[in-house]
């Protein structure tokens, strides 16, 4: 045997030096720094550890203090709301809805400020504590005034009777088709009630349930006629958004094997956001993901699609790969063990030297393999997919050369297969 090849590699590569760039060095030094930091060592107790310790203690302290801070503020506003609610409830009656919407704005500010103050509570002075008390009071009073203003806004300008306070209340004001809405009339029982739902539907019940099955914006009108013939109306608007349609496809023409990437094609309509559940605990938010399963099997794949309005639709395909993963393939050469017959039982994992001629197969229900020599002599037959040919016939190693094989059988879905080919018995 010549050593030209070995010498070539040894001479060229044994002492060969490469250029390592400075970016690789920087990357490594950062990695080393992190690793050293997390391997605590008293010898290296330096400023970094000190900083970390101080930071941890500070954070712990802040958490402790802020906890006691929120406790003390929670009891403060008690007893106050009745009084303030009274005064502000009167206000909108005098000044109209503009004022009440202004207090609504104030409420948001107040909430924002009081939450914004939270982290600093450890150092707060009594004056600041006082200020927060007042904010809490004002936020409670603002909440009261809001209820007043909603009642006022629900009243319609077309109201003909100043005596009756009428409102058309809906359980929801917007949603996805089909949308179920419960309407509530504030009018009493001694009146004639007519609801018009805006899509042609009507009802004479006082509190009807209604289902919108087409998307759109609908003006709902409530008309009430009392015993003296006075008519009041109120209205509200319902927005019904269309649902997307979730749908997807995979390339079904080819069989999938261990380690293959599966390409999912998204066929959804009217959707902007997606969530894929590949059925093995992995998720993706891509539109058209590709996924490589760690192990082939039957997975339930689910796709959830959301429209821009937040309406969702989902589709689940169970056992997506049920009729996939059915294949059988044969190598075209093998090298039998020269030391003696191995019996032919092989293991995909250990037969790395390819000492046994056997198929790579999946999803096989029944199986028959026959191997003939070129002279037409049957040298091997197996009905067991786990049993391949070790290259021996009647205890003797067969001559190197080409052999012909024929296989017939069925896949687990009942589909038949018949294949034939040749294999070279190698000798080295």
């Amino acid at each position, binding site marked *: 045997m010549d050593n030209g090849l070995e010498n*070539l*590699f040894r001479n060229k590569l044994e002492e060969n030096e490469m250029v390592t760039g400075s970016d690789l*060095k920087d990357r490594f030094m950062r990695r080393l720094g992190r690793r050293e930091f997390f391997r605590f060592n008293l010898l290296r107790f330096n400023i970094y550890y000190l900083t970390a310790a101080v930071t941890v203690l500070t954070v712990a302290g802040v958490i402790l203090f802020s906890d006691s801070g929120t406790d003390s503020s929670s009891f403060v506003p008690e007893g106050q709301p009745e009084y303030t609610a009274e005064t502000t409830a009167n206000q909108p009656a005098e000044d109209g809805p503009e004022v009440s919407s202004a207090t609504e704005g104030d409420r948001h500010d107040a909430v924002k400020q009081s939450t914004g103050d939270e982290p600093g509570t450890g150092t707060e002075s009594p004056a600041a504590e006082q200020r927060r008390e007042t904010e809490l009071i004002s936020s409670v009073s603002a909440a009261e005034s809001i209820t007043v203003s909603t009642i006022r806004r629900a009243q319609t300008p077309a109201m003909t009777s100043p005596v009756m306070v009428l409102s058309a209340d809906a359980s929801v004001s917007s949603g996805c088709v089909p949308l179920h809405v419960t309407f509530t009339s504030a009018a009493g029982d001694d009146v004639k009630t007519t609801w018009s739902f805006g899509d042609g539907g009507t009802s004479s019940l006082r509190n009807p349930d209604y289902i919108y099955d087409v998307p759109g914006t609908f003006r709902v009108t409530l008309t009430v006629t009392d015993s003296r013939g006075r008519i009041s109306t109120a209205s509200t608007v319902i927005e019904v958004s269309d649902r997307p349609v979730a749908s997807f496809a995979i390339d079904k023409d080819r069989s999938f094997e261990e380690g293959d990437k599966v390409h999912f094609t998204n066929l959804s309509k009217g959707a902007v956001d997606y969530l894929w559940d590949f059925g093995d605990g992995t998720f993706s938010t891509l539109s058209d993901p590709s996924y490589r399963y760690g192990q082939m099997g039957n997975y339930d794949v689910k796709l959830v699609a959301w429209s821009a309005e937040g309406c969702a639709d989902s589709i689940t395909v169970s056992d997506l790969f049920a009729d996939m993963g059915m294949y059988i393939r044969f190598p075209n050469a093998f090298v039998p063990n020269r030391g003696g017959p191995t019996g032919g039982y092989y293991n995909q994992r250990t037969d790395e030297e390819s000492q046994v001629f056997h198929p790579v197969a999946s999803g096989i229900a029944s199986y028959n393999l026959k191997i003939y020599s070129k002279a037409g002599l049957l040298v091997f037959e197996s009905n067991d997919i786990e049993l391949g040919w070790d290259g021996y016939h009647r205890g003797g190693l067969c001559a190197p050369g080409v052999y012909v094989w024929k296989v017939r059988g069925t896949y687990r879905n009942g589909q038949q297969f018949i294949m034939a080919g040749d294999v070279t018995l190698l000798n080295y």
Partner: protein
Amino acid sequence: MSEQHIIDGCIRHNRKAQQALWNQHSGYLLGICMRYATDRPEAEDMLQEAFLKIFFNIGEYEGKGSLRAWLRKVTVNTAITYWHRNLKHKHQVDIEEYVSTEAGTAGFEEDFCNAEDLYRVLGELSPGYRMVFNLYTIEGYKHHEIAEMLGIDVNTSKSQYSRARAVLRKKLEDLARMKGKFIQ
């Protein structure tokens, strides 16, 4: 800094000493990693792991033999660990790679290819072949030692080696033929 200074500094995790060690030896060690890796990024990854081992275990170097040899040993061990971790790829051997071992016995001219070419040819080999070929040819281990290190059979080591050799020979012949065409 003398070599002993650098070693002592590295034991104390002195950043300057570590940088000096990197500057002096990273090129050589990357050359080793390149032999065991599929491509350059994988080699750089291996190199980083090797240096982490080196910096955390440099106290174990007792001055027996040269520092360079010790570094090389740690790096080769890292490559073996790396290979074990990616063991699942071990069985992916293309049928096309079953080349007759008898093919061609002519020696190779030293000058027709450079280190880059050899790294690429090695990188195209399946990881198991590459591992055995490296350990046997360049590191100079015996087949029974390789079998022990990799947890495989002695015969597997032998057969993988001879197949690796055959595949390499074929690839180099192709390369030589291609280069010959370019010259004409």
